């Protein structure tokens, strides 16, 4: 039984400020991901892989098709769900590691990581403790934990972002180039974290250009080129 099903997902941007130019992104995207499996979106840059992840998370709108999240006993269609339903899904069903960390001013790295847990009712101290454990695994030096990540290096920011996305246990995990700015050691750490998530039954949709990472995590490659908009 799939945890996530995409069926005929279609997206076009209309740029009103550029004379209403229409930029078709993808058309008819259809695939499903089972619990404990990882689908890697394949294809060259600019083909719409990130847009697909963003539509699943409800960050981009979907013009046509269905994005069914099978949570508890019901299937919720992200493409048509009310904002409140999507927020609820993000709180209990979907975790998303975006390509770049959007840092909030003044918030310490450890709190950035702990926030999704606190938002769903974990006590701040307990959440911070779990965040600390994950930051240790990801080799973030302890002196950085109390600092806002805005000034961190690219690789450090990416690991903060990964920690934030991996900390809550959600049935669906979306990963946008999680290892792009990491060295070999940390790439291996993230690979191991992904393998653990799969073992615990998380359904994963990932974008990974790095061949080693892709081969290590993918159960299926979804060729996004098949869904190029005409």
């Amino acid at each position, binding site marked *: 039984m799939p945890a996530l099903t995409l069926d005929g997902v279609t997206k076009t941007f209309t740029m*009103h400020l550029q004379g209403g130019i229409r930029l078709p992104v993808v058309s008819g995207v259809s695939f499903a991901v089972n619990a404990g499996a990882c689908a890697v979106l394949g294809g060259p840059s600019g083909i719409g892989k990130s847009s697909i992840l963003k539509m699943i998370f409800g960050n981009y709108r979907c013009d046509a098709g269905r994005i069914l999240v099978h949570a508890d006993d019901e299937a919720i269609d992200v493409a048509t769900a009310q904002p409140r339903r*999507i*927020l609820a899904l993000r709180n209990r069903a979907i975790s998303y590691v975006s390509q770049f960390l959007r840092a909030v001013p003044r918030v310490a790295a450890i709190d950035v990581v702990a926030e999704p847990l606190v938002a769903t009712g974990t006590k701040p101290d307990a959440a911070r403790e779990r965040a600390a454990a994950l930051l240790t695994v990801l080799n973030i030096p302890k002196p950085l934990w109390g600092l806002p990540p805005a000034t961190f290096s690219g690789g450090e920011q990416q690991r903060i972002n990964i920690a934030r996305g991996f900390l809550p246990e959600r049935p669906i995990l979306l990963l946008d180039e999680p290892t792009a700015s990491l060295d070999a050691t940390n790439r291996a750490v993230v690979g191991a974290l992904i393998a653990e998530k799969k073992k615990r039954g998380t359904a994963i949709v990932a974008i990974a250009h790095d061949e080693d990472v892709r081969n290590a995590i993918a159960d299926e490659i979804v060729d996004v080129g098949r869904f190029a908009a005409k």
Partner: protein
Amino acid sequence: MTAAESPLLAARGLFKRFGARAACHDVSLDIHEGEVLAIVGESGSGKTTLLRLLSAQTEPDAGTVLYRMRDGVTRDLVTLGEAERRFLFRTDWGYVHQDASLGLRMGVSAGANVGERMMAVGARHYGQIRETATGWLARVEIDQDRIDDTPRTYSGGMRQRLQIARNLVTKPRLVFMDEPTGGLDVSVQARLLDLMRGLVSELGLAAIVVTHDLGVARLLSQRIAVMKEGRVIETGLTDQVLDDPREPYTQLLVSSILPP
């Protein structure tokens, strides 16, 4: 619908004209407990008028504003009497003005500004009032040794934090904010935003925040309504509307942000 599903406040078909100008044209929106809604748009788009309509400070030409009171009964704010409205403002609501001097009593001490709100809902024990007021001033990062000073002696950012403490001390369920960070330095803004984010999630408040600053909307709100010429032209999840704006006017707003 269960209490958790039905909105705390629901506006339907609000209209308001000032002379020939439509300040609010057929606006409907909902707000639920624990949710922050941002109302964005340029100056003159009708944001503040809408906030005043929602908070029953301005009477609409048409439309209703339904509010679920603490006793679970839903009332139309338009038909509430003056005394009932004032009671709501004292007990269930907060209103944070852009100009803190409108929301504070400038001639009395900071402690009294906070204590006064508590007394309005029945607190009488001086020691307790003082203790709670001190606690709240600490939460909004105002030094203890400034508690007996009047807000006249405070900086803009401190006044704004004091105004927030005064509003939240009575544990309102709904807070209206009109450009809460307007006119403050960016560093002061960041501190205030951080504070508001924390308090809103910690207290599970519902809040309606009017701002022309899309960055403030992104940081504080989960949902957003974009206004233009008195109409709500686009609504949705805040990150969705800002990252994938659909309407020409929203695209213009989003593309007009200067990167730092």
